[in-house]
């Protein structure tokens, strides 16, 4: 704990220990796009879960099965994830089946809400926008923020090429050689506050910016029948529309995981300093970082 509080987050520490320089670390483009992504991903996630509830199952295939319509023809039960609800003697129970294994998820998945008057729905009202099932509205909001996400990503990419921020994100071979040490530092809650991102930061941000964002956009577009006609290779790349829907969902899960780790790291590394960095661009570096007036450092 002491290590964390001494990391230069607060001027209250300074009589004991020397302060590092207040460096200018994040350009206006990085800060602006960062917060726009927060808003976009917030709405995309929760409207996405409302859209998912329209067919709370996922398939690795070109098409989806219809296991509940055996009367009509041969059933094709190819869902790897299926969220549903059943009425039992103990009331309504939510059931989630993953790769053939069924779990009771009453209260969260399948069946949720007031136990006396339960809702049969995939994800519960607390994590969908709108809170009630409204596929039409969820799609309107989802596609609006989808466009904003793509536009913001384009702005970030162009700005980062011009201000060379883009080179600061991918880890270099030298960074990767430092990886074991960096992991050890993180495990000891000993965080560097340098001019550049540390190795694990670079890896995390690279995965989000260069893998997860492009993947979630491309798999989203692969679900569009219009895009399928114009760019049929999307279907081949992702193994069909229903597989693309699964990858879209899994990529979302990876982004949620990133978000959780990201917030934990902000809190551990000094939330005030980290928030100041993403609002004003200024970041209090560790005391061993030399002052450099040429880099617009402040005391």
């Amino acid at each position, binding site marked *: 704990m002491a290590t964390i509080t001494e990391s230069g987050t607060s001027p209250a520490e300074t009589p004991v220990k020397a302060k590092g320089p207040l460096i200018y670390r994040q350009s206006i483009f990085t800060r602006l796009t960062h917060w726009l992504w927060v808003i976009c991903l917030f709405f995309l996630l*929760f409207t996405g879960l409302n859209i998912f509830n329209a067919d709370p199952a996922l398939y690795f295939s070109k098409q989806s099965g219809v296991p509940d319509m055996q009367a009509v023809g041969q059933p094709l039960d190819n869902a790897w994830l299926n969220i549903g609800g059943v009425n039992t003697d103990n009331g309504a129970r939510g059931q989630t089946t993953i790769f053939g294994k069924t779990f009771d998820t009453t209260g969260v998945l399948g069946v949720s809400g007031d136990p006396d008057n339960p809702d049969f729905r995939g994800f519960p009202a607390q994590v969908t926008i709108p809170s009630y099932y409204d596929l039409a509205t969820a799609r309107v909001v989802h*596609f609006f923020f989808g466009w904003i996400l793509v536009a913001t990503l384009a702005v970030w990419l162009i700005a980062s090429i011009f201000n060379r921020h883009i080179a600061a994100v991918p880890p270099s071979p030298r960074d990767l050689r430092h990886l074991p040490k960096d992991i050890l530092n993180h495990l000891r809650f000993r965080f560097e506050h340098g001019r550049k991102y540390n190795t694990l930061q670079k890896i995390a941000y690279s995965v989000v910016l260069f893998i997860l964002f492009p993947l979630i956009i491309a798999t989203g577009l692969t*679900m569009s*029948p*219009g895009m399928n006609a*114009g760019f*049929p290779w999307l279907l081949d790349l992702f193994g069909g529309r229903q597989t693309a829907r699964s990858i879209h969902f899994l990529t979302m899960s990876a982004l949620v995981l990133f978000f959780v780790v990201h917030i934990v790291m902000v809190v551990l590394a000094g939330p005030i300093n980290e928030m100041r960095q993403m609002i004003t661009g200024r970041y209090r570096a560790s005391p061993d970082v030399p002052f450099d007036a040429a880099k617009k450092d402040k005391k």
Partner: protein
Amino acid sequence: MTRDKLILNRRRVLGLGAAAATTLTLGGCDTYDGFLGGNDDRGVREFLANANDLTYRVQRMLLGQNALAREYSSSEIRAVARPNGSTDPQGADYLKLKANNFADYRLQVTGLVEKPLSFSLAELRNMPARTQITRHDCVEGWSYIAKWTGTQLGPILDQAGIKPEAKFALYHCYDTMDGGFAGQVPYYETSDLIDAHHPQTILAYGLNDQSLPVSNGAPIRVRIERALGYKQPKYVHTIELVSSFANVGQGKGGYWEDSGYDWYGGI
């Protein structure tokens, strides 16, 4: 002393952060209901829906007019052609036609055309046929692959002579849907003339090598292969060319569109 203060501050920050996160997520999702739902009179939803117009314009630009939906091989027809929406219309007109195996069925082509036309089912079946194995995607998310047989809509419209002011094809259907205060309303849907003329846009009378079943839209279902299922009207009896949606339902261009779904339906 300073350390205590700092920890208190940090606790407070953590508390605030947790409170903010709770407001945004757990309490947050119904916060937006008022803005986005059907009762929204602030125009937020309408503004956000502009993104769908953008999608339509950009896709029309990127795709070209005649880019084809993927066609699959017959071995890929694995699931049943899942019927959805209306599956058994009960209107008196329709029941009469069905009783006679649609021998008295007529497809009308009307509206902004030089020469209104009318075809029997036998006449449509005798026109040049097109068979395509395509994927049907429901707006809910599920898909099935099926083989559709029919005749192209484009040549029929050209035969009727499209007037220059015509902008959309309006499909009138026999099946009825819940129209809220209006009671039961016949299903209606529109497409632009690009989709109406698309090579894969057919008046389908066959499904998986059999006559189109009632549950899938007998005797005629319009297939618009680059769009979602609600853009593929079933039980079609009249194709009317119109210049706007002003006199179509509540003005949004289709039954589901009037309930808030996007008109383009290509995404």
